[in-house]
């Protein structure tokens, strides 16, 4: 079985930065990613757009275009790269190498590595409003992916609903591309700037981000897109697909016809791999999500398993680049590949840069607080999309004595469908915490088991341990 110094899962900003750093230090590195090309979600299809479709760079903006440089360095780094590969199991014995089981190119392959870096990033927080399962409803991130990867956009009658920087960025990209947005439904509670004010002095370290945010708001302000503010009670309506969207704006009921509704309530760490490896996690009350416990070098509670980027807590692309570098420098040192003094100097530099990037986060968390209504959900709104389990059923399970998500799963099959709880895990934790009057930390999360991606019998049968 092939052995590497470092295996990296995810070729976004954190994974690519770590790969480049580790290769510079002389480590053997393999990187696997589900997507067909490097870049992660933030720099998705950066190679194609920088090459054959340069017009898209102007639409997507300079933060997107800036990814081309790191992607090129990554491709030249000499790290082995498996795109379109699904990691479906990782084994981390107490004393020894990590072993990864990956479906790639129709064959299941296994290899080992001394250290593992999980750089699987973030996913959008699921937004369980009535009707969110209807065709025609998807996430803002999904629409942005369609734009980046294929130059595709939804038409006609496109509504954007939610809160947060990504929503505003995508709206600005639509304006730049001439894509018509019928209305923007802001769920951000009123008083965002007042809430942000106390955090402003510390956030000034991240003045570039603040300036960008200010420019975004100004661009949208002059765009003429109708904006509904203080939106609550959002619901998508339709029979076979989305037809109408109902909501309240500052308390007043509104109904709009719509063919497309894009939802966004911020992003949260993708928990699947750190949960599979039984890493310790804690509840982040400001971002209303779990995040893995990490050392100042990015190591989890499991020896030689590291997390870099948004998978360890939301910090954005540049923070991911720095945290990937920090983890790779630490791993290189453990492999004996870096001279102590120079390695430490590099880590201190990267840590300073990371701190500057993260300075703006408390301000953003205060301005765009994660939704608190999810914890209070009840009734027939779908929580688990795969097994079609309602909020009322989750509450009922709590009343019947289910102390946590794993018992609710056994009662209801919530979290047992193909997505394995990715779409309902956080919601189930929040509802159970509310119903039982306990903290989400105490309630906990689903126990994640392999395989974490669907594997065909053919891929299983074609197990190739020699590769």
């Amino acid at each position, binding site marked *: 079985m092939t052995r590497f110094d470092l295996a990296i899962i995810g070729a976004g900003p954190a994974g690519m930065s770590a790969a480049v750093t580790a290769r510079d230090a002389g480590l053997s590195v393999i990187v696997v990613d589900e997507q067909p090309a490097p870049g992660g979600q933030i720099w998705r*299809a950066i190679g194609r757009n920088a090459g054959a*479709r340069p017009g898209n760079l102007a639409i997507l903006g300079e933060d997107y275009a800036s990814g081309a440089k790191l992607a090129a360095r990554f491709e030249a780094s000499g790290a082995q790269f498996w795109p379109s590969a699904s990691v479906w199991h990782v084994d981390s014995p107490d004393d020894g190498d990590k072993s990864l089981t990956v479906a790639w190119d129709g064959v299941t392959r296994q290899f080992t590595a001394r250290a593992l870096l999980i750089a699987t990033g973030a996913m959008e927080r699921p937004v369980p409003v009535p009707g969110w399962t209807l*065709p025609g*409803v998807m996430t803002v991130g999904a629409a942005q992916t369609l734009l980046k990867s294929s130059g*595709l956009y939804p038409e006609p009658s496109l509504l954007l609903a939610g809160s947060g920087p990504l929503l505003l960025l995508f709206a600005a990209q639509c304006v730049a591309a001439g894509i018509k947005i019928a209305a923007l439904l802001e769920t951000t509670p009123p008083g965002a700037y007042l809430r942000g004010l106390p955090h402003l002095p510390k956030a000034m370290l991240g003045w570039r981000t603040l300036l960008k945010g200010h420019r975004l708001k100004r661009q949208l302000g002059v765009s003429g897109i109708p904006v509904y503010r203080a939106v609550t009670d959002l619901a998508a309506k339709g029979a076979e697909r989305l037809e109408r969207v109902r909501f309240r704006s500052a308390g007043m009921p509104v109904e709009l016809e719509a063919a497309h509704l894009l939802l966004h309530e911020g992003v949260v760490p993708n928990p699947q791999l750190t949960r599979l490896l039984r890493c310790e996690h804690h509840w982040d009350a400001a971002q209303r999500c779990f995040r893995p416990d990490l050392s100042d070098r990015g190591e989890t509670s499991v020896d030689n398993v590291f997390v870099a980027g948004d998978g360890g807590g939301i910090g954005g692309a540049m923070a991911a680049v720095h945290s990937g570098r920090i983890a790779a420098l630490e791993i290189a040192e453990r492999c004996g590949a870096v001279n102590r003094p120079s390695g430490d100097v590099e880590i201190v530099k990267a840590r300073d840069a990371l701190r500057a990037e993260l300075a703006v986060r408390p301000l953003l968390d205060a301005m765009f607080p994660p939704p608190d209504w999810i914890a209070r959900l009840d009734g027939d709104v779908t929580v688990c999309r795969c097994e079609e389990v309602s909020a009322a059923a989750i509450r009922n399970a709590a009343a019947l004595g289910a102390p946590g998500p794993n018992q609710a799963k056994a009662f209801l099959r919530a979290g047992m469908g193909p997505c394995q709880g990715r779409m309902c895990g956080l919601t189930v934790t929040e509802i159970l915490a509310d119903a039982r009057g306990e903290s989400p930390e105490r309630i906990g999360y689903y126990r994640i088991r392999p395989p974490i991606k669907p594997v*065909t019998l*053919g891929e299983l049968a074609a197990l190739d341990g020699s590769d």
Partner: protein
Amino acid sequence: MLRRLPEQKGRKVRFLFEGEQVSALEGDSVAAALMAAGAGTTRTTPKSGAPRAPYCMMGVCFECLVEIDGVPNRQSCLVEVRDGMRVRRQQGAPGLPGEADDDPV
């Protein structure tokens, strides 16, 4: 319905959706190509038969599951469309590979 911005360079790819010929651009995911072709519903749920379509486009929601070349449960947002692919909606619980009738080509 999805529309495409002007000046999206790329080779045209032809594939079959429910036996009908559909075209896309090289580099499109199957999920993107289906939505661009106006597929609407791309699967129905095993429990109630409710209509679904791609939701996250990044491999986490599993709503875009379809049958590709006779293999069910494929995440169509993670698969690039190729010439001659045969794609079908996934109706309810998937059967075993090879169980479904082949498209009349």
